[in-house]
């Protein structure tokens, strides 16, 4: 059979089209359908009892433990900060919980902040490479630091300011490197991972272990008998900006 130049071009064009078409079909069909909650599926969640937290007297044990466990660089310049768990005054964290005439009990108190591991995370929705995704089996919002292209769209999408970008090489700014956890490279986004590496070993998150006051309770939000669920049944709790429909998995007892 003789193939003319025109035939060749036509065939290679068709071939290319088929490849692109297959990719597109796969992408569309693989678009995650709202996952029917399998029986075993967990949803890790956290309940922080603000009445127990001693951050206003200067305790930052949880933050220190996280920084050490996850090789988080310390940059003096606020613009280039990388932080997974940190604290901020109550009124910036819960701006709508303030009223004009009644001083909230926690006004001015530092409140621990971290990624909310939302059930409906906007960061995951916007990521163009699926470098951040919600893990089906336990609801943790994960990051792949080898896939992230550093476009920072997730940082624009996160309504909680939970994500940090490596504006420069983080390694020189890490006091002592923990060999059990990866360091990151410049140009990628990172955030709290709910200590998924510790959960995999059957341990609780580092911030919880470090807290001298047992402020934070961790467990499966899908299990009605779990510790966090028992607390949430009896105490009044706040979520950050629940009106946005993101459904945070971090709760604050007030």
């Amino acid at each position, binding site marked *: 059979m003789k193939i003319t130049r025109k035939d060749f071009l036509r065939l290679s064009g068709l071939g290319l089209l088929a490849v692109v078409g297959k990719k597109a079909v796969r992408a569309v069909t693989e678009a995650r359908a709202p996952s029917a909650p399998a029986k075993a599926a967990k949803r890790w969640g956290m309940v922080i009892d603000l009445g127990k937290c001693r951050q206003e007297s200067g305790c930052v044990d949880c933050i220190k433990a996280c920084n050490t466990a996850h090789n988080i660089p310390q940059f003096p310049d606020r613009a280039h900060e990388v932080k997974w768990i940190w604290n901020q005054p109550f009124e910036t964290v819960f701006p709508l919980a303030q009223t004009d005439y009644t001083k909230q009990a926690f006004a001015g108190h530092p409140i621990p902040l971290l990624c909310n591991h939302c059930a409906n995370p906007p960061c995951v929705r916007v990521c*163009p490479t699926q470098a951040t995704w919600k893990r089906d089996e336990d609801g943790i919002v994960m990051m792949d630091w080898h896939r992230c292209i550093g476009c920072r769209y997730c940082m624009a999408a996160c309504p909680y300011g939970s994500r940090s970008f490596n504006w*420069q090489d983080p390694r020189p700014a890490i006091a002592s490197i923990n060999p059990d956890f990866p360091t990151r490279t*410049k140009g990628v986004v990172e955030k709290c991972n709910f200590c998924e590496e510790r959960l995999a070993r059957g341990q609780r998150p580092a911030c919880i272990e470090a807290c001298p006051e047992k402020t934070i309770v961790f467990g499966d939000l899908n299990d009605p008998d779990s510790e966090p669920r028992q607390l949430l049944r009896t105490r009044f709790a706040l979520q950050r900006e629940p009106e946005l429909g993101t459904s945070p998995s971090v709760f604050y007892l007030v």
Partner: protein
Amino acid sequence: MFMFEKAIVGGRRYWVWVLCLTGIILAGFLCYLRQLTYGLAITGLSRDVTWGLYIAQFTFFVGVAASAVMVVLPYYLHDYKQFGRITILGEFLAVGAVTMCMLFIFVDMGQPSRVLNVMRYPTPWSLMFWDMISLGGYLVLNAVISLVMLSSERKGVSPPHWIKPIIILSIPWAVSIHTVTAFLYSGLPGRAFWMTAVLAPRFLASAFAAGPALLILLCLVLRKVAGFDAGREAIDELGVIVTYATVINVFLVLMELFTTFYSRIPEHMEHFKYVFLGLDGNYHLAPWMWLSGLLILAALALLLVPKWRHNPRLLPVACVCVFVSLWLDKGLGLIIGGFTPSPLGAVTTYTPTWPEATIVLGVWAIGALMITVLYKIALSVREAH
């Protein structure tokens, strides 16, 4: 190939201009190499203001690219013959502008070597994915259309029939590129400044004002330096398009201001307050935004009075006002204003650094060089006839 030989013949002035642009491109490239080594820390961006000049320029020039439709549509759909001479200029402007947009996205990335991940892991629920498709498609459409039209013009034959549906397709495609760009912003919870349904219409209106204004200015420059006459009537018609689009844009901005300030929802008002008045002692953006407002009002006055709009001295002034005003609004205020105050209420000053500005200038110069070369080719083909 592609009539490129016509671009390497030129007078002294042409080569001086090309050399200047090449110099700026080199300077930008050197700064980019530094950014590649040290990371985006060499820019003025921060944890709170994560996008700045690069992404703002991308947004603005998507508009310039989309505005080619303002000459393509009257010429091909309504057979408006007066645009015959400038349609190719509009299409080549789009080619240059889309290239700049892609470069601005590229220089903004933290890990540029991984850019192909966007194609390796196609993610249809991310607007960034659709932006890539719409920009890439628009570049191909305009490149194919302009080159096919130009080569048939050179050969003195009528263009092939298959090009007509492609031209028709390029019209909604132009609208789509700027709509998708607006969707990048307007679908984000917690960013009240962008959370508005008029963002996409506003983007289109400002694009159809700034783009044709630039095209008028380019036509006038070409008349000076290359003896190209776009035709009085075509320029006047472009002036009318700029006028309508500017009026619609100002109208949409006023609607935005009304809903924000009559509802008095603090979260929405704070961004506007920051942009126009300053917040927590940070008012470095306010003077620029007021300048933008004054320029657009001046432009409106010059454009709305027919006597002034038809005045060949005042029309370019109005066009410069429109272009600069909308550049300040979209290429500066829109992005920075969306990030300030941050979701946690922090007001962080963003000031572009010198290397960052040089990279921006470098990308502009690449766009200008492309447009120079393409216009040179187009006009040489014309002259030969």
